[in-house]
């Protein structure tokens, strides 16, 4: 017959157990001690042995800025984490740009599809919808900002999309796609409402950008976000973001054209109504 009385564990005994001090079996419930011992016994790593996620963490340590280039592809866990971080940061910039300019991401599509074929038009439209414009930007800057934002969003989307499709389990795949659907909802909606369409849209967009701007994206980008961006950003961001907003725009290649084209490309793109299906691939590509 047991003499243990675990219901009457005292504070002193609890502290003994929690503090790892020897416990008199008559005073302490042995099974509880065993339970906690089991919980406290991690698979002890040894010197020279690697722990799950180690390479990812080391990559982050070696490059605290965490560019995509440092992602060890063989480590799915870090791909998940990096995809999240990059996705969120770049999407945050995109959403911030959309909010500040008073335009929904989807409404960028015509101008972006035509690659700022009519910068004046888009700038005027943006200003007319903007509730506040604390940091006026030139038309070229605004348009370039939108292009960079959407390009960044597309790159982040593609990273997340590929990662989701290569997740190791069905539950993980579902979970990641649900996250994508939440965080890239505007992009997906603009591209036709489904993730594959968004993927195809982004492929086309990035291909077009690379073709038209082989030296990199236009450089007329503001050096920092407008002053009221952070407050707006916090309201516009999707849930579940890591703390800390992006402090700079996505890195863009150097050697960019100094000005964006001011006339429509040839052939001139059709301005699509909001939510329309995008013609993919782009003309001539």
């Amino acid at each position, binding site marked *: 017959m047991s003499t243990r009385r675990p219901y009457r564990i005292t504070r002193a005994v609890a502290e003994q157990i929690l503090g790892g001090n*020897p416990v008199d079996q008559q005073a302490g419930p042995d099974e509880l001690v065993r339970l*906690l011992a*089991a919980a*406290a016994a991690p698979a002890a790593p040894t010197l*020279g042995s690697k722990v799950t996620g180690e390479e990812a*963490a080391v990559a*982050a340590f070696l490059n605290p800025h965490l560019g995509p280039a440092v992602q060890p592809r063989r480590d799915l866990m870090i791909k998940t984490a990096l995809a999240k971080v990059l996705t969120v940061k770049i999407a945050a910039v995109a959403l911030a740009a959309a909010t500040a300019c008073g335009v929904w991401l989807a409404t960028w599509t015509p101008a972006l599809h035509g690659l700022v074929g009519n910068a004046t038009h888009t700038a005027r439209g943006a200003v007319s919808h903007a509730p506040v414009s604390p940091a006026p930007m030139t038309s070229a800057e605004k348009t370039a900002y939108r292009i960079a934002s959407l390009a960044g969003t597309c790159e982040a989307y593609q990273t997340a999309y590929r990662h989701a499709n290569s997740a190791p389990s069905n539950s993980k795949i579902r979970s990641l796609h649900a996250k994508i659907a939440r965080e890239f909802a505007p992009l997906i909606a603009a591209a036709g409402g489904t993730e594959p369409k968004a993927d195809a849209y982004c492929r086309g967009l990035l291909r077009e950008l690379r073709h038209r701007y082989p030296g990199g994206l236009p450089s007329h980008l503001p050096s920092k976000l407008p002053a009221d961006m952070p407050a707006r950003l916090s309201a516009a961001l999707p849930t579940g973001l890591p703390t800390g907003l992006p402090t700079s725009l996505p890195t863009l290649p150097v050697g960019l054209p100094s000005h964006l084209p001011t006339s429509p490309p040839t052939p001139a793109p059709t301005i699509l109504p909001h939510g329309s299906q995008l013609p993919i691939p782009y003309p001539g590509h």
Partner: protein
Amino acid sequence: MDRAVEPSSPQAPRPIQNLPDTDLSSAVRDAQRGDEEAFRLLFRAVQPRLLRYLRGIVADEAEDVASEAWLQIARDLGSFRGDFDGFRGWAATIARHRALDHLRGHQRRPASVVPIEMLVDRAGDEDTAERALEAVSADAAVALIATLPRDQAEAVLLRVVMGLDAEAAGRVLGKRAGAVRTAAYRGLRRLARHLEESGVRAGPPGVTRTGPAALKDTR
């Protein structure tokens, strides 16, 4: 605990938990100067505990959350001030914030899987089962602890799994040490009652037994 981490032979690799605090504290300083190997050492020393603590909060998402935490740890390591004990608490704080972000985003609680049968099955075997109990049923034990109210579960996990004292755990949780002690005490009482009602019994009685938080002593 001591038994579980001691090398079984002179040739066995040296468990990191057996490294003295001074080694790991110097690893903190070296890592802050950019020493990759020192960072690896810290990672290996902390990550297993961190993962287990996170499993008690976010269950299956623990690895992802831990990854996010380490990204931040790696990024902010230069701004950290303190020794290894402090580093462990600092890492736990970051991991906890990431876990709570995750929960807020998903409104998810850990899966309330209570495989208490695993404990029943393994308790009461011969002595060698001790190691198996610790190695195999750790997740079950954490899952059981995770069924406690969150404040109690976290207090227990931080103290037992992360090996933090009440003051350090209080800093992680943003509470006073007394509140942590109370929460942990209530958690232990509830766990003991649960075990009692489930009929879990330990193996052959010993005279005394070393408590679980010996992590602190065996590092």
